[in-house]
């Protein structure tokens, strides 16, 4: 349905998106995961025709939309990361304005506004000015605006940034329902939990490149022969860390506060070795946990960094 082919973007000679290939099939929910600055928003800007790529192509049903994006715009809804609404206008007035310029027929506009307000759950507050809304409510109107023209494809760029858990849950549930009703979704986030929860397939981006892609199961299989162990210590000791890194089978040791995260090959005697060196350097192990692999671990495995680094 929607596809990017070797999509690249350079700003002043610096490559911020590098030959990205991704596709969305009809009705799919696809995640674009990566830390801040990975190139997700720039990729979305190019897909949505807001930004011209330096090279590569974006196609809708095998037709390039770079030069003639009108067809894509008619079926695409974009929820930007920022609250792209007029603060001095009410939710209703914002929807009415954007509905008109999206080309929603006049006789359908009122009903579409009320439908979308219903979907995002702010029908009762529709006459309130945006500037008086909480962060969560603004996010909901931000989404409603992208739904006005009943898009077949919905791109959401970090739609839950900076909002309360209740609003986040509401938005995630709303996106899931839209997807279940047939809307194709491209969801970007640096919250891997959201992507795991919502998406059928995931692209992981870092430094402008897609570094991994596939279903959740496929991505987790990257870690199939590795364990992640979280160890809480009473203190961090440099000699202890050096010795831990030197244990046979340990691939990475990450420090976070007084805890360390160890990625190591399975079926190795890591635990007994850790106990041994803790005695040796007088470091007390306060807690010990074998972690179920997640996309966060996949990202850590691939980049050596966490998503929030």
């Amino acid at each position, binding site marked *: 349905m929607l596809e990017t082919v070797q999509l690249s973007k350079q700003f002043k000679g610096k490559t911020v998106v590098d030959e990205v290939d991704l596709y969305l099939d009809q009705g799919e929910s696809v995640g674009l995961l990566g830390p801040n600055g990975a190139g997700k928003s720039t990729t979305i800007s190019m897909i949505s025709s807001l930004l011209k790529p330096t090279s590569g192509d974006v196609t809708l049903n095998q037709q390039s939309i770079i030069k003639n994006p009108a067809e894509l715009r008619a079926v695409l809804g974009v929820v930007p990361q920022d*609250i792209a609404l007029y603060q*001095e*206008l009410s939710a209703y007035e914002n929807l009415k304005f954007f509905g008109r310029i*999206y080309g929603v027929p006049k006789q359908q506009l009122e009903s579409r506004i009320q439908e979308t307000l219903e979907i995002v759950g702010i029908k009762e507050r529709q006459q309130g000015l945006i500037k008086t809304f909480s962060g969560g409510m603004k996010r909901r109107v931000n989404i409603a605006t992208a739904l006005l023209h009943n898009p077949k494809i919905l791109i959401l760029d970090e739609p839950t940034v900076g909002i309360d858990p209740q609003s986040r849950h509401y938005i995630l549930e709303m996106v899931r329902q839209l997807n279940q009703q047939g809307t194709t979704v491209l969801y970007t986030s640096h919250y891997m939990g959201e992507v795991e929860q919502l998406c059928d397939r995931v692209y992981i981006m870092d430094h402008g490149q897609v570094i991994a892609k596939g279903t959740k199961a496929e991505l987790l299989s990257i870690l199939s022969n590795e364990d992640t162990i979280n160890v809480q210590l009473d203190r961090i000791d440099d000699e202890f860390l050096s010795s831990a890194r030197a244990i046979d089978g340990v691939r990475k040791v990450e420090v976070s506060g007084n805890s360390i995260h160890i990625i190591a090959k399975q079926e190795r005697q890591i635990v007994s070795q850790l106990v041994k060196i803790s005695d040796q350097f007088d470091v007390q192990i306060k807690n010990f946990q074998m972690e179920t692999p997640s996309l966060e671990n996949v990202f850590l495995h691939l980049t050596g960094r966490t998503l929030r680094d």
Partner: protein
Amino acid sequence: MWAFLTKDLLLFWRDRKEVAVIILLPIVLVVLLSLVVPGMFGEETSESYDLDLALVVEDQQDQGFERFQEEVEPSNDQSQQMIDQLQAMPPVDGLVAYLNSPELAEWVTVNQMDLDQAQTQVDEGELDAALIIPEHYTYQLLNEMVLDEPSEATLQFQASGQSQEVDMLRQMIQRYLDQINLQYAVASSGSQVDSANDNLPEGGVENVEGQSMFSMEHYFTFSMAALFTLFLAATVATRTGIEKREQTFNRIALTNAPPLYYLMGKTISTFILAWLQMMFVLVGAHLILGVFTEEGPTFWVGLIVMATLYALAIAAISSIMTSTMLRVKNNDTGDGIFMAVVMVLGVIGGNFVPINVLPNWLQQIGELTPNGLILATLTEWVQDQTYSLLVMPTVILVAIIVTALSIGIAVYPKRGEQS
């Protein structure tokens, strides 16, 4: 496009602080300036005229006539008629009488004295100026007027320094002499001669016969209306910057709405706001201060036509600023540039201080700015409601509108070009 237009007007209306600044502030300023400034500079100006003039009469008028008649035989009846006329209304007596007339007595004190005394007192600054009627002045004047022979019949005017009042007195004497010369010339052709009568300056503004008075209230009303309407162009550009920063412009760009609808919405809404602002200030100043009480329908028609053209010019300029704002990387840079442009236009257009305090070359440029042009045009219009006066300003304003709109459209970013 209607959606863009209503959105922009609604956004403007919701910003009550801006509405207050744009509509009320100029009216408040017009009222304050009209009440305060004339009291400081204007109304007291006429009362502050207090010139001391030395009058030195070295000419002996009667001897001059006698000598001329002894030496010269009138060549024809016309010459004799002129001599008779001059004797009936002797030029030196007429000038002395004029200087001592009640009209001049209000602001000039004439002291008759001899030459040495006059020069000493002028040099020492005790007197402002001296008018010297030299020896044989009447005789030489007769030679020049009757025989058309070159002579040295010249009055001498000496002043202790340059001042507006001294210049005015010099001009008044010159105008009197010009009028006398004309009257003698007319009389020599057999027509009726009226005694010389000249209007004196009153207040800070010269009242030209057949024209309405242009007052400080008029100046402040026109200049504030033009200036604050000009500010509107920068305000609209600032709003564009906010739409860019808050990503609403990008959201608009994601729709299939024709790109220029955004610019046209901005331009038309600016025109409506600019026109309303002009009208609020002009009508407000009239209702509060009675600025145009004596004006009739013709004046208002011309005023509305020019205000409409000016509002269109401001809208066209705002289209350049809007397009530029969409291209600049930093909104603050755009705001700074636009405010600087408005301030420069305001200064050279004469909205902050009257344009005549500026150098001539700058005045000429200033009168080509829309705000300077509207100010100069309305200044003339309030004094003389002849429609032909509006033709050239209309042509210039239309040229500004077309040029500015073309630039605005050319600069407007194509898809994917906005910063």
